């Protein structure tokens, strides 16, 4: 058992210890909760210190009696980079939760689930064995269910938890079948070997990556599985930060990056990915503009931003996708924690109850502004560089330099730039409605959150500000996340911004900002608003396509059961009884009548026999 596996197990152990000691002592639970991800972070840093590696660190996992448990790990540059991000965000979320969940009676179980969630995500990140990957993947689904349903006294929290679980589970069915196909076709459960073997065979690559894509769309909340994510806002804000930044949604994109050679061998799947990404990107951003809840704006923004990563993967640039994954993780965790701080102080998440909080909450204001600027993609924040890298990747694909067709590149490029406009629009609207204007009555007497809550915000603001510098050296990140020193960079697109895309996105941001300014003033509903507010009508579509037909079938099955099968069974009984009641009138105790009947029957029988014999 080596360092990567210990890194996965420590938060899991912390989860169980936290559950054991948490009931007795709340500070002990908090200490254990922070210690778990922090210890994992230390191990991740120590693994980084062993760089440069010529090859990934491959480990067969448990030895001895535990040998049959799938626990092989493969740690390469990509895995350790994402693991570092996961541990950082998880640690900060745990610290923040101490303050945010101060009055929550179920804090011990909550923090234990967050630790377990982190452990599951780390398992997905470092898994070298496909079965190990699936275990981490499924535990993550379980934890999301438990954490979204944290406030299970509320009806909407219960429904959101079930919805998140079921919707992602639909995708997971495809994921598991895909993994089984992959194992069956390549006769190995080790991910690097399986991916290599699958990439050599286009049929296997297409089938397996297509099926795995279903699970990815579910976890990463892409169209048509996106509708669970906004409802998941029923969970506490730190959980949202965790789900939207470090775990869950990142897992989907990460798995594609991990299996990337196989996806590159299946251009059809990449084209489907690009179309889905374009739908999710623009659709979710448009929905975010009309939301009236601070967390829902951010949730739809996550769907839109994840679509950028999926689009980057679809146009052949893993580096751009991972770059955006990391920078998005930092600024989106920051945004959710800041939104949580606002909600914590004001006691409402509705944008109508917010406004004019600038002076009351200066630290939250400053950090959230940084986060929103990064989201919009303003120079020189992380979001600017990572979004530029996605645009450049799309531009390269549009020039026909990648495996996908040129029209796919054009589509992604145009939609991505339009989405930049819409992103600026909802970000500006959110910022104006939260921080400026008159202060509504619920926001009276609001003051800054305690340090245990604003320090994580500050800590996340630092990478949000500085992370983009990584792109200044074009080869830095691609070299860093390469699996081996000898491996050629997959989709070798430089991450340094280019003038054309910069110019386009600056114009897009400016247009979006002006539109956002107008959108924030407008209170009246306008055309298309109900449609957008419902999440592009996907919930309605599911209602008509799945729920209603299902209920229809159920209703008719019940009717058939009750009126046909049930009546047939009851009819056999009542029919027999009725026949018996009719027949008993013949039994009058008159022996002579019996005998004459018997004799008549005998004569008839004899006549029949004689006639039969004669003919």
């Amino acid at each position: 058992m080596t360092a990567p596996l210990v890194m996965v197990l420590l938060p899991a152990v912390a989860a169980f210890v936290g559950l054991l000691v948490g009931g007795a002592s709340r500070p002990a639970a908090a200490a254990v909760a922070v210690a778990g991800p922090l210890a994992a972070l230390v191990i991740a840093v120590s693994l980084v210190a062993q760089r440069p590696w010529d090859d990934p660190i491959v480990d067969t996992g448990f030895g001895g009696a535990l040998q049959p448990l799938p626990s092989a790990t493969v740690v390469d540059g990509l895995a350790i980079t994402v693991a570092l991000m996961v541990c950082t965000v998880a640690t900060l979320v745990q610290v923040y939760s101490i303050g945010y969940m101060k009055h929550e009676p179920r804090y011990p179980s909550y923090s234990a689930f967050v630790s377990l969630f982190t452990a599951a995500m780390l398992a997905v990140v470092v898994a070298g064995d496909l079965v190990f990957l699936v275990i981490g993947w499924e535990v993550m689904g379980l934890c999301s269910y438990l954490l979204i349903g944290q406030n299970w006294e509320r009806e909407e929290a219960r429904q959101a938890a079930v919805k998140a679980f079921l919707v992602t589970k639909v995708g997971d069915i495809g994921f598991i079948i895909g993994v089984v196909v992959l194992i069956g076709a390549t006769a190995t459960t080790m991910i690097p070997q399986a991916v290599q073997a699958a990439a050599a065979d286009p049929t296997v690559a297409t089938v397996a990556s297509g099926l795995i894509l279903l699970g990815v769309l579910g976890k990463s909340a892409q169209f048509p599985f996106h509708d669970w994510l906004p409802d998941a806002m029923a969970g506490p804000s730190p959980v949202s930060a965790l789900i939207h930044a470090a775990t869950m949604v990142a897992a989907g994109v990460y798995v594609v990056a991990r299996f990337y050679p196989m996806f590159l061998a299946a251009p059809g799947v990449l084209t489907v990915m690009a179309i889905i990404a374009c739908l999710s990107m623009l659709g979710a951003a448009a929905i975010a503009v009309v939301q009236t809840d601070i967390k829902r704006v951010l949730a739809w923004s996550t769907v839109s931003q994840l679509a950028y990563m999926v689009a980057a993967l679809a146009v052949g640039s893993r580096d751009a996708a991972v770059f955006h994954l990391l920078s998005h993780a930092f600024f989106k965790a920051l945004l959710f924690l800041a939104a949580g701080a606002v909600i914590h102080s004001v006691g409402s998440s509705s944008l109508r109850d917010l406004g004019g909080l600038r002076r009351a909450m200066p630290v939250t204001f400053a950090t959230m502004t940084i986060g929103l600027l990064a989201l919009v993609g303003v120079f020189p924040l992380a979001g600017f560089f990572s979004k530029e890298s996605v645009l450049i990747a799309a531009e390269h694909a549009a020039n026909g330099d990648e495996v996908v067709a040129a029209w796919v590149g054009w589509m992604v490029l145009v939609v991505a730039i339009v989405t930049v406009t819409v992103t600026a629009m909802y970000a500006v609207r959110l910022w104006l409605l939260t921080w400026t204007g008159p202060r509504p009555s619920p926001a009276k007497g609001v003051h800054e959150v305690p340090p245990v809550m604003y320090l994580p915000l500050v800590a996340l603001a630092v990478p949000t500000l500085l992370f983009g510098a990584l792109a200044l050296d074009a080869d830095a990140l691609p070299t860093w996340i390469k699996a081996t020193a000898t491996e050629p960079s997959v989709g070798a697109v430089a991450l340094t911004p280019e003038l054309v895309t910069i110019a386009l996105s600056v114009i897009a941001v400016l247009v979006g900002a002006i539109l956002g300014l107008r959108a924030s003033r407008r209170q009246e509903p306008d055309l298309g608003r109900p449609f957008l507010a419902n999440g592009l009508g996907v919930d309605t579509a599911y209602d008509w396509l799945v729920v209603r037909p299902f209920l229809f079938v159920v209703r008719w099955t019940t009717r058939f059961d009750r009126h046909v099968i049930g009546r047939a069974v009851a009819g056999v009984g009542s029919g027999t009884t009725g026949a018996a009641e009719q027949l008993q009138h013949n039994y009058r105790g008159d022996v002579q009548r019996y005998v004459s009947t018997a004799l008549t029957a005998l004569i008839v029988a004899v006549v029949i026999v004689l006639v039969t014999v004669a003919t």
Partner: protein
Amino acid sequence: MHLCLPLLLSVGLFGIGTYGLLVRRNAILVLMSVELMLNGVNVSLVAFDVYWAEALRAGQSLAIFVITIAAAEIGLGLAILLLLYRMRGTIAIDEATDLREGSP
């Protein structure tokens, strides 16, 4: 003697017995009708026995059995009728309908 004559006698006895069994109300007459039927059968048994002339004389043996059974039956039957008469003062069999189904 032709086989036809005893068989005609047999059928006549059996038919008279059957008629009596079905239409008589008096239980003693019903019992007598049963005797007539049995003896009709006996006549045909003996007639066929003579006709076939088997070494084992199965027809005659069976006739002896039937006579024995008939004797026992008439003894039992008369005892039952005696009890019936003591209990009800009548032996009309269409009034002895205690074993009928439905409401008494």
